[in-house]
């Protein structure tokens, strides 16, 4: 019960801060910001970050990180582009192959980290380069060897970028991913293992958890999430280029950290990452409505993040202290 209280209260604080941000922009940006279309667009912008964020969150909870997400997205998109351009295989087959490539790429990361003992940061940084290079190598070129974007406009694929009713398909997918991700983390043995590995690898090993295997699966899941992210990105662009996801790797990490996932591992969850992703998307969208020079937008963005995060951290520290004291008291009652 105590645990529920502690985490739900924290969650309310995060949501409260998101709300404050929305109110702030509603006041400053007026109707330009505060309208249904804009909110749907904000959620849409947060969706790919949210989907990829599920895997990245798991990686961060194991005290790791995944810097290769953008490159895996590109590799997946480019794999599909090749199938699209050179075969007449059905779209679902193309998508499944894309997903398999994503999972394989993720497993590569997992192997390098879990079994070759390369630190997560450097390992995924290296594969970020490797996967991007592979993408360029298999990229579609014209007769002169100049790299080109491959249009993928067939309805069966492009429709993935459309809306179903109010929400975009990508948003619906994101919601599914978040729900499943949350269930996996909180209600399966694997999920518990993920937290254990992140909190203390040695203790996890002593408790009989297969640390390496857990890492392998976590990065495999991350690869899968990247694949889905890559598919939706390509669908929205109705094309694939080698540059997809360039510089994207940072967004899900930032969303996770803003959402309360500690880089030191062992804490956080994907709902937090979702809130983080929404927060970042709102911020990005909101400052555009302030009708300001780009330069000032950067300053405002940074200042808002610092203020919000300062408040958030101070509050969380306070909560932790209370919980600790309560824990001590519980122990004292015989």
């Amino acid at each position, binding site marked *: *019960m*105590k*645990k*529920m209280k*502690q985490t739900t209260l924290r969650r309310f604080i995060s949501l409260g801060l998101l709300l404050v941000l929305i109110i702030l922009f509603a006041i400053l940006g007026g109707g330009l910001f505060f309208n249904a279309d804009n909110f749907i667009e904000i959620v849409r912008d947060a969706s790919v970050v949210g989907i990829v964020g599920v895997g990245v969150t798991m990686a961060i909870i194991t005290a790791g990180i995944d810097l290769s997400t953008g490159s895996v997205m590109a590799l997946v998109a480019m794999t599909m582009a090749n199938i699209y351009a050179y075969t007449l295989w059905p779209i679902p087959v193309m998508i499944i192959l894309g997903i398999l490539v994503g999972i394989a790429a993720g497993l590569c990361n997992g192997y390098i980290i879990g079994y070759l003992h390369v630190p997560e940061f450097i390992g995924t940084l290296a594969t970020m380069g490797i996967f991007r290079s592979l993408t360029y190598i298999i990229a579609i070129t014209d007769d002169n060897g100049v790299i080109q974007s491959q249009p993928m406009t067939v309805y069966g694929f492009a429709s993935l970028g459309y809306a179903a009713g109010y929400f975009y398909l990508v948003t619906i997918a994101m919601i599914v991913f978040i729900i499943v991700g949350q*269930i996996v983390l*909180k*209600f*399966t*043995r694997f999920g*518990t*293992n993920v*937290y*254990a590995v*992140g*909190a*203390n690898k*040695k*203790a*996890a*090993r*002593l*408790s*009989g*958890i*297969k640390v390496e295997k857990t890492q392998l699966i976590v990065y495999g899941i991350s690869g899968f999430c990247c694949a889905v992210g890559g598919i939706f990105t390509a669908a929205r662009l109705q094309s694939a280029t080698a540059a997809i996801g360039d510089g994207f790797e940072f967004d899900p990490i930032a969303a996770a950290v803003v959402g309360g996932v500690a880089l030191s591992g*062992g*804490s956080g969850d994907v709902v937090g990452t979702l809130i983080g992703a929404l927060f970042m998307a709102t911020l990005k969208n909101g400052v555009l409505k302030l009708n300001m020079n780009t330069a000032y937008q950067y300053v405002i963005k940074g200042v808002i993040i610092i203020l919000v995060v300062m408040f958030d951290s101070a509050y969380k520290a306070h909560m932790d*202290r209370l*919980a*600790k*004291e*309560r*824990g*001590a*008291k*519980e*122990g*004292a*009652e*015989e």
Partner: protein
Amino acid sequence: MSGMNEIILEAKGIYKSFSGVPVLQDVHFDVRKGEVHALMGENGAGKSTLIKIITGVYSKDAGTIEWEGKPVEINNYQDCQKLGVACIYQELSVIPPLTVAQNVFLGREPRTFGLIDYAKMNRMTQELIDRYQFPLHPATLVENLGMGQRQLIEILKGLSQNSKLLIMDEPTASLSGKEAETLFHIIETLRSEGVSVIYISHRLEEVYRLSDRLTILRDGQNAAVLNREEIVPKKVIATMIGKIVDESAGSKKMLHSDDTAPVRLEVKDLTDPADRYRHISFQVHRGEILGLGGLIGAGRTEVVRAIYGVDKAKSGEVILDGQKMNPSPKTSIAAGIGFVPEDRRSQGFIPLLSTTRNIALTNYDIIRKKGAAVSYADELAMSKKAIKDIDIRPADPDKEVGVMSGGNQQKVVLGKWLMRDLKLLIVDEPTAGIDVGAKNEIYEILENLAKQGVAIILVSSDLQELIRVSHRILVMRKGDVVKEFKNEIVTQSRVLSAGQGILDEEEAQA
């Protein structure tokens, strides 16, 4: 007890070395069905390493392990569980961000439709807790709990697996008398049910009381295997550390304290902001060793942390040599206070740094400098002195403290304070996990310090130790000082009953 002589586990010719340094050499070890087999040896003798080899955490360099007569390969903890072996490791393997119940059932969570059934898991944990009467709640996050409670969780985890062999590596290191007593009863019940137990402890009286057989390791080699009737304290200690130590069972003692000595420390009306202790007032005189007793969670740790200044008290005064303090570690150290924290692993030392660096950490004010540079020679000399003074092993000043044995880590933590002039030394569970030989050395060190006029506050859950070392004893209960033992005969049971809130000794015995 049928089949008492049937060997359930046998380890033969075990060799192990870490980066070329041999830790185990040709070790033989066997456990019979339904016996409590104690494993003893000095700090660093290789006990934990042997356990980790048996449970597949480490691989062995050579040797075989047989289970019920058949050779087995144990490569990980799952293999152990399949055979029916459970282990409570010395370095607790609880996972802080998970709840008590999640920790107890880690990897064995009850599931419905593949999803963890938290309600059931909490219920099952509560049943276990009720059965053993541990002060725990299933849904508390472990990160909010103290060391003693964490140790209880670890024990609960081991007990919940219904194993044929239960291995316990210093399970009572941070337990107080009451919980330890509960544990002994549990062990005795298990034995009568035919479960074998490997029991490692540095508390001799526990070993004498529980063990059917005893294997002693010395410097990584078999020194002796003793049967129950051969377990004679003097002999055990002599075999273990190669010299005779007076282990006069300190279960009873006449306390003497010198009230005429000047007051070194005065604590007035100290109250915790979170109400974990309140209105604490006491004095410590020069050259006096003040023992602080009580059960887990009595608030002793909190009080001494506030005196040293790690945590801030809400109100109250700390006065050292007539000087009112504004406690913070920095000012405390400057004023001549030393502090050995309860949880050495997370608060005591820097695991990645060497013995030298750890020892020097609080002493840079007295280590010479050449210009801006720290004199390496001085630093090294200090660390060598500490290694010699309290016999830290391995005696390599450059050894990372993180990989040293638990007892030696504790010596490093204590060692840094012995290198400087102190007025007051606060030690919280100073001998948790320390072997008898070293324990005695530590007691002697404390006594010597006291003779030189240093005031000492000793927080200890080891009643024997508390009684043996203290000049005066305060007992805390739920945040209050409930009893003072002073210039009178004190026994373990009196201290224990005071801690449990039974103030009259006769009543306790009745």
